[in-house]
């Protein structure tokens, strides 16, 4: 019995292959977008965990000498005086594909050497004796293998991400820095001897623990939210198709039940069918998701490095959590989409009317209920803002988006009815009223389009506002024409003397890493100069902030102000015995850490020994190339020690663009899924559409005219949806800029409007509508009259 019933149920898909394909493809696309995001998140988190586990040096106290590198002799002396330290030498190794970070360690004393325990075929003598070995993750190792004259590279999965590891002796040779040590890590408890006696001029710092996972949480939350939205958009596709399939098969259900198939058996059969569909679509979706994540991961990796300094491997690994999660989501999606049908199967009387028309009219009755539910959802979401926090921000966004989506069909019906009433010609009157009549079948696809368009406008406005603000901010913040880093304090003094007659001003850049109201942060000292007064981007300030600064007050970045809840006039505690009043708040995009600025004399009063090796130079823009060449020639400075401001800006903007490349890609894909939703709706509604078109054709509109009108109708609905999406997208942009960004990154951005982007998106919406209608329209122009005539007659 069960077998026969299953055969009857499954035969539907044989006769409706397009429905089957759209259902599987819709679910697969939704799963793919979700899985891609989860795969990226999983890869990034694995890299953070690996970095935290393997390079615990961040938690170890570090000895450095601000005035320059520590020598090998000094290191030996320090060891002999009882200091348990291990030397590290770090630098960037030039390769044909750009520079890679290399870390040299003393493999005999470095505690993290345990990572090599897993490496097969690694003999200690190979690592310690020339030519030595380089250790890197497989992807990086592959890049290095192509470079001639490098020692053998060992590929090791457990190696730190984005870093080449080697014995310090080898790194000395590769970087041409023989006998130099950048820093010493304390690998045991402090000895009794004084550091200044053992190594004069050295400082011992307990570096903050960069909890990368915490810092990047907001970034991943953003991605997850986007993935969830894409999945929701995909669900609309599945829900629409499965709803139609259910109604089309209601006749079969009725017959099966009338023939004696028990309702529980029928329910179980449909459930089993949903599970099989979910498995097929889930596997396809995971495969697509893997491809998508592989394509996006390099950009995410670059973003995380640019934003947080977090190293993430750019190669994707197939990890069970996201694979199983993807399958789970596919199953959840299929069951969610099929739940309504299953409930109806149990509730609706055996002999209730059947067919898509009834489905459409039943859906139409739900419009007002949906609109009411949508309004409640939006209000609840916005009310959640009262609780504060990132989750509340996302709750508000979800409530607003889903609420608006639920209210869309009722709103469109209202608009279309009004337009139809005012239409003059018979064709336009018919087209508008027919658009309204088509809403029940297309509403889910249009809701998906609304979500995709609103997200595009919202995220696009946020990114463009951010870009505009960021570019302006960079112009202000990087006011000096050239930035310079000397090898030592002595060289810096020499350079400054040389520069004084050749530039308008030499602005020293000196800083100390300390505590700001109990939080680790950096304090810069600046001299009193017009460059700062004229350019520094203050978002809040007292009456004379620059004068106050030279009198001992402090400027803090927006992140610190928002984190600790301080504003202009409040006191900030720095190192013991140092407290300063806030004279102004400045925007500091791209920096997740607390930061502050004080007058140079104030900084030197509290920290007299801080390095003085960096400076900004003010001069005529036209003189920059000559000065840079002269500087390098006179002082034998490495290429990266003198930087043209334009290079820094270009690099910063590049990081910025890459950061939002992933968001942009997801945006486009979500819009694509929405376009696909319209296409699937039009295709699945095709058979129900003929009875509406055939009479008009019979009355004298050609198939070509009708096809053109079909495209116009689809474009019209897409355009109306885009009009509704505009205010919704702007509301979303405001929530992202004023709520989510503040909670996630610690800064609030001004909102700018970009009407040209709206026009572009409107054109995209029209294109999506037109493309979606193209296949049905083409099919209509080629339709045999006999097919249309079937609508009128059963008698041959």
């Amino acid at each position, binding site marked *: 019995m069960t077998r026969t019933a299953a055969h009857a149920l499954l035969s539907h898909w044989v006769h409706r292959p397009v429905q089957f394909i759209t259902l599987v493809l819709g679910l697969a696309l939704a799963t793919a977008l979700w899985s891609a995001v989860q795969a990226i998140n999983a890869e990034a988190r694995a890299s953070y965990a690996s970095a935290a586990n393997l390079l615990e040096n961040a938690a170890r106290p570090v000895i450095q000498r601000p005035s320059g590198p520590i020598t090998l002799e000094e290191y030996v002396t320090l060891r002999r005086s009882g200091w348990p330290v291990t030397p590290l030498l770090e630098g960037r190794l030039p390769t044909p594909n750009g520079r890679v970070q290399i870390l040299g360690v003393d493999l005999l004393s470095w505690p993290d050497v345990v990572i090599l325990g897993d490496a097969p075929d690694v003999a200690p003598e190979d690592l310690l004796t020339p030519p030595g070995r380089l250790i890197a993750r497989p992807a990086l190792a592959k890049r290095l293998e192509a470079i001639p004259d490098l020692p053998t590279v060992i590929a090791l999965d457990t190696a730190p991400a984005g870093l080449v590891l080697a014995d310090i002796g080898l790194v000395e040779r590769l970087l041409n820095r023989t006998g130099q040590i950048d820093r010493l890590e304390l690998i045991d408890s402090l000895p009794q001897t004084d550091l200044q006696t053992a190594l004069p001029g050295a400082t011992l710092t307990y570096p903050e623990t960069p909890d990368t996972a915490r810092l990047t949480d907001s970034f991943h939350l953003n991605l997850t939210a986007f993935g969830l939205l894409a999945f929701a958009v995909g669900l609309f596709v599945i829900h629409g198709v499965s709803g139609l399939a259910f109604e089309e098969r209601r006749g079969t259900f009725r017959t099966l039940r009338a023939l004696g198939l028990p309702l529980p058996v029928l329910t179980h059969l449909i459930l089993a069918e949903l599970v099989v569909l979910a498995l097929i679509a889930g596997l396809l979706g995971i495969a697509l998701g893997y491809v998508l994540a592989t394509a996006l991961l390099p950009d995410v990796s670059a973003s995380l490095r640019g934003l947080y300094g977090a190293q993430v491997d750019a190669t994707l690994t197939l990890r069970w959590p996201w694979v199983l999660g993807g399958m789970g989501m596919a199953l959840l999606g299929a069951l969610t989409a099929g739940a309504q049908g299953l409930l109806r199967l149990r509730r609706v009387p055996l002999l209730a009317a059947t067919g898509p028309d009834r489905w459409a009219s039943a859906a139409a009755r739900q419009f007002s209920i949906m609109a009411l539910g949508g309004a409640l959802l939006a209000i609840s979401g916005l009310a959640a803002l009262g609780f504060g926090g990132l989750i509340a921000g996302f709750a508000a966004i979800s409530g607003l988006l889903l609420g608006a989506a639920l209210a869309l069909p009722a709103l469109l019906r209202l608009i279309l009815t009004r337009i139809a009433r005012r239409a003059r010609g018979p064709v336009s009157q018919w087209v508008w009223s027919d658009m309204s009549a088509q809403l029940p079948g297309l509403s889910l696809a249009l809701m998906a389009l609304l979500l995709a368009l609103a997200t595009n406008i919202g995220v696009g406005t946020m990114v463009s506002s951010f870009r505009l603000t960021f570019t302006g901010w960079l112009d202000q913040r990087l006011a000096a024409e050239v930035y310079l880093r000397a090898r030592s304090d002595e060289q810096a003094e020499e350079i400054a003397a040389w520069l004084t007659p050749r530039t308008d001003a030499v602005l020293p850049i000196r800083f100390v890493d300390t505590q700001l109201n109990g939080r680790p942060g950096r304090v810069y000292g600046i001299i009193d100069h017009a460059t700062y007064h004229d350019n520094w981007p203050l978002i809040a300030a007292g009456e004379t902030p620059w004068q106050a600064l030279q009198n001992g007050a402090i400027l803090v970045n927006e992140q610190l102000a928002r984190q600790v809840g301080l504003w202009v006039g409040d006191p900030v505690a720095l190192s013991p015995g140092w407290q300063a009043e806030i004279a102004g708040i400045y925007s500091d995009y791209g920096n997740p850490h607390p930061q502050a600025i004080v007058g140079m004399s104030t900084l030197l009063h509290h920290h007299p020994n801080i390095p003085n090796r960096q400076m900004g130079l003010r001069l005529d823009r036209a003189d920059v190339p000559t000065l840079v060449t002269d500087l390098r020639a006179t002082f034998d400075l490495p290429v990266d020690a003198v930087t043209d401001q334009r290079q820094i800006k270009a690099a910063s903007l590049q990081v910025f663009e890459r950061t939002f490349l992933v968001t942009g890609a997801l945006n486009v894909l979500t819009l694509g899924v929405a376009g696909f939703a319209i296409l699937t709706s039009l295709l699945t509604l095709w058979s129900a559409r003929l009875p509406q078109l055939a009479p008009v054709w019979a009355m004298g509109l050609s198939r*070509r005219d009708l096809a053109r009108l079909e495209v116009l109708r689809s474009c019209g609905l897409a355009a109306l949806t885009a009009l509704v999406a505009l205010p919704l997208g702007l509301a979303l942009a405001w929530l992202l800029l004023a709520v989510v960004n503040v909670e996630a990154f610690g800064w609030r951005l001004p909102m700018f409007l970009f009407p040209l982007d709206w026009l572009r998106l409107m054109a995209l919406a029209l294109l999506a509508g037109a493309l979606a209608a193209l296949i049905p329209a083409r099919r209509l122009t080629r339709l045999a009259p006999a097919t249309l005539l079937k609508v009128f007659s059963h008698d041959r």
Partner: protein
Amino acid sequence: MRFDCNGSDMLLELQSVSKSFDARPLFTDVSLQLDGGETVALTGESGSGKSTLLHLMGALDDPDSGDIRLGGTQYATLNDRGRADLRRTRIGLVFQQFNLIGSLNVAANLTFQARLAGREDQDWTGHVTARLGLNDVLTQSTETLSGGQQQRVAIGRALAARPDLLLADEPTGNLDEANSDRVLDLMLDLVQESGTALFLVTHSEGVAARLSRRLHLSQGRVS
């Protein structure tokens, strides 16, 4: 003259028309003529090809062979758009299933084809509407009407455009006897008033008997 056929009253002419369906011949070498204002009934068994013949007359489908002309216009010379123009301006269609446009109300349905053809005559439409007894339901949705009312709207829609030829396929097939008589009476009256020729396909001998001429299609031949 509303049509020109070399001075004669002949409106529609079929010459040696044949049509097959799924490789099965429906009818062969059918020739017939219809004069302006004439009312003709076509009867025949189910599946004999009555509706198909009506579709060919309405330029809705192509014959396998033979020639069809309406007022001198040869169907074979028309492309898809030309046929659409012909249907819009010269032919009215009434079907068994009514085939109204559900998204438009009764008034919009009634005037639809006349406006489409660009010759809406408000006095004539008002007259047709009144004769069909639809004045009270003009603003209603067609879905709220009874079967008889829906068929009257379909007849009104076809005749409001004052076509040369009205093709009706089992127009009373879905109606009970009382409604059927009433609808047929109205249709015949209005056809006479407008001078429109009527070609009606029916199963009913009673309905066929009320038209001026009666044809029978059987075994692929019209007699």
